């Protein structure tokens, strides 16, 4: 399984906000275990979807020079389940961004209705402050994430 939990960006304003969508499909293996006979997307994976949306937003704003590490889930609240066939939308906004870290807030929606709120803190890890057991290269923004952003052609194309 590829560890990528958003399908495409539908809006992106550098350093300010980003929106991505995720189509939940029965082809995803975890749905057969969560739960047998009652497939729902685990909220932890919706947090990951928001972390990828917001993390790419944060990384892009500083030219992908640093690894952007999810350091803290400040808030994660969900009101409803997401089922196969649903399209989720992650809307993320940068609240604060500096050398040390970034704070983002965001909503998860389904069919235009907000079903969750996820606020995150990311740490910036670069060569100067990297723990010794982490690799030298940028291990967060791998090709599959970079491709996701380079494929983004604006909201009109995805209408």
């Amino acid at each position, binding site marked *: 399984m590829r560890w990528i939990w958003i399908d495409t960006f539908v809006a992106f304003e550098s350093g300010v906000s980003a929106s991505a969508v995720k189509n939940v499909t029965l082809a995803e293996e975890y749905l057969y275990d969560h739960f047998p006979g009652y497939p729902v997307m685990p909220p932890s994976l919706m947090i990951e979807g928001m972390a990828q949306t917001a993390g790419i937003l944060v990384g892009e704003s500083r030219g992908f020079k640093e690894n952007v590490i999810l*350091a*803290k889930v*400040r808030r994660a609240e969900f009101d409803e389940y997401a089922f196969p066939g649903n399209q989720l939308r992650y809307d993320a906004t940068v*609240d*604060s961004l500096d050398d*040390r*870290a970034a*704070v983002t807030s965001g909503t998860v929606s389904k069919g235009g209705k907000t079903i969750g709120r996820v606020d995150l*803190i990311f740490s910036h890890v670069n060569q100067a402050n990297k723990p010794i057991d982490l690799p030298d290269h940028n291990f967060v923004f791998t090709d599959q994430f970079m491709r996701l952003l380079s494929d983004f052609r604006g909201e009109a194309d995805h209408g």
Partner: protein
Amino acid sequence: MVASRDEVFSKIQEVLTDALGVDDDEVVASATLQDDLGAESIDFLDIVFRLEKEFSIKIPKGELFPDDILSNPDNVDGDKMTPEGLAQLKAAMPHADFAEFEKDPLVAEMPKLFTVNTIVNYVENKLSATA
């Protein structure tokens, strides 16, 4: 108008309950952030961001929670802070109460300087400086 100490305390109580997932009644003036309220390293940054927003202040890196004094080897001798290190720390943290710590300045005891009261003092100083 400058906020009263009670108003500042009440806002800080809310900041800490949100940031650390603790109950209101745990956030008493003498509570230490790490031992009593369970704060981890990233929580200190979270607290700084929340205080900046709540009080509309700017908190420069290391001003509320100085983290670079211990990294200077001259400031530490074995498990204790040197007199120079302690002097630097006291100068950097006028908002902290050193009465107990300076009797035996063990590095391991340093987290006890970071209490709820330390934050209240810091924010009060900051607000009165900008009033």
